């Protein structure tokens, strides 16, 4: 089917409009749709989906003052505002820190499911607390290197090595 506007390209967009009980159909190509300012998105970009979902978050939390909205992750300094902008999280710890906000998004993205079912790592996974400890040690190491406190940095490096060794 040819595009009804340019009559050149294949019509890949098919619009049906019902106004006052009258049904009109339009078959156009993507190029003409863009020129005519007809929004065509076969997939909503993930960032947009996320911001839409986050924008309609209930504001109970905000009212009660315990808002995740203004929280920064203690492990990586990440905030929900950054998530809204970038569409990705800052560290594994964010799943816990921003759990309330993320849960409805997770539910929507995964057909209403909110709990893992499937492969579990062969080794007993390092528990969340240990994972976060290691994350925090690396954060401290970063800060120590930045402030040129090499004595502290060396100590932290040893601690990280020790912690990694315990698992292997």
């Amino acid at each position: 089917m040819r595009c009804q506007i340019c009559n050149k390209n294949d019509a890949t967009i098919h619009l049906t409009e019902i106004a006052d009980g009258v049904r009109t159909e339009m078959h156009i190509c993507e190029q003409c749709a863009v020129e005519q300012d007809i929004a065509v998105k076969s997939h909503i970009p993930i960032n947009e989906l996320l911001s839409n979902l986050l924008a309609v978050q209930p504001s109970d939390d905000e009212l009660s003052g315990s808002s995740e909205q203004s929280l920064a992750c203690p492990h990586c300094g990440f905030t929900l505002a950054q998530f809204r902008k970038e569409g990705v999280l800052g560290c594994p710890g964010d799943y816990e820190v921003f759990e309330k906000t993320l849960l409805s998004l997770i539910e929507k993205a995964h057909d209403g499911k909110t709990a893992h079912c499937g492969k579990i790592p062969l080794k007993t996974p390092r528990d969340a607390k240990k994972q976060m400890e290691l994350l925090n040690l690396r954060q401290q190491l970063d800060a120590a290197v930045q402030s040129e406190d090499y004595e502290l940095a060396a100590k932290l490096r040893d601690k990280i090595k020790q912690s990694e060794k315990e698992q292997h």
Partner: protein
Amino acid sequence: MKLTDISNDINEWFDGSGPMADIVISSRIRLARNLAGYKFLSRCSDKEKSEILDKLRDIMMSLDLGDKVFYVSVNDAPTLNKYFLVERHLISRHHAFGKGPRGVVIAEREFFTAMINEEDHLRIQVLKAGCQISQCAEQINRIDDMIEKKVDFAFSPRYGYLTACPTNVGTGIRVSVMLHLPALKITEQIEKFFNAAKDLNLAVRGLFGEGTEAASDLYQLSNQATLGVSESDIVSRFEKTIIPEIIEYENAARSHLLSKQSDVLDDKISRAMALLQNAHLISSQEALFLLSHLRLGINMHQHMGASTPAIERLRALCGSGDDPDKASPLSIATINRLFMLTLPAHLQINYGKPLDSTHRDALRAQIIRSALNQQDPRKS
């Protein structure tokens, strides 16, 4: 191993072999993983990214895959090489044009790649020809087990494998099949396929990802939900329900074309042959569409015994076989080869230097002409 060592040929999962390959060109499974104890990439400094990259690259290079592997530093790669890797589906567009230290480990036979520092620390994928989803699943699971012996992945009992984007959390698995659906397109039923996919919560993308749906009759279909459903359930849903249904739709459309609209079918095939055998400038998109119609004709003959005047003329065409002096019947492998080798970055890498679009169109047309006119003395 250099990219030019692989650029002259197609990879083994694109050679037209494998079960149900007339419709399911290839199967792919990827897993998203992140190292425990590290931040996700959006919060990592370049130094941390380099640390992750070094650690994971060493592990990936030492895996026992039954094939040699090579490494490409994506951040240092020339733009043309990045496009080349994307065209071959060895890395994603996101990886090609991302930021910071990142790379990819590739098995020489190209059935396995590991993108390091893409959106997650590690994304491994296994690709196979035709419909071989459970075989991909089995192999990638084995590779994942090998990696897990050497590192800890971020994992929570509640949410499973933790990923940078919550849409991949859980199993972190993406099952994806590349489908050739020309008859659904010709019979104007492709929208039905899009809608069915949407109802099943599956994503449809074009040959080269989002936004390229209209670029050819090749589509990639993949699962979206990764949490609350096991890897084996996702795989079996594809194999037992989704794929058989799509094959049935496409085959019904092919039968309809043959019995009710053979003029339309012959017109498409004849026009494709005439243009591909004679044109001197062909864009990449035009080539994809026209080659798709040749592929349809050959497959309809091989799988349905179809014999129309245009299909018979198509069968009389010869493609280049292994021996350049001896032409062999035009095969699906030859068509697939033309699909891949005439893509913009492939053309330029094989030519040895960058070409503007007119020169690319001319070179593309020349390669196709010479492949299709192999044994026709009037045209060679």
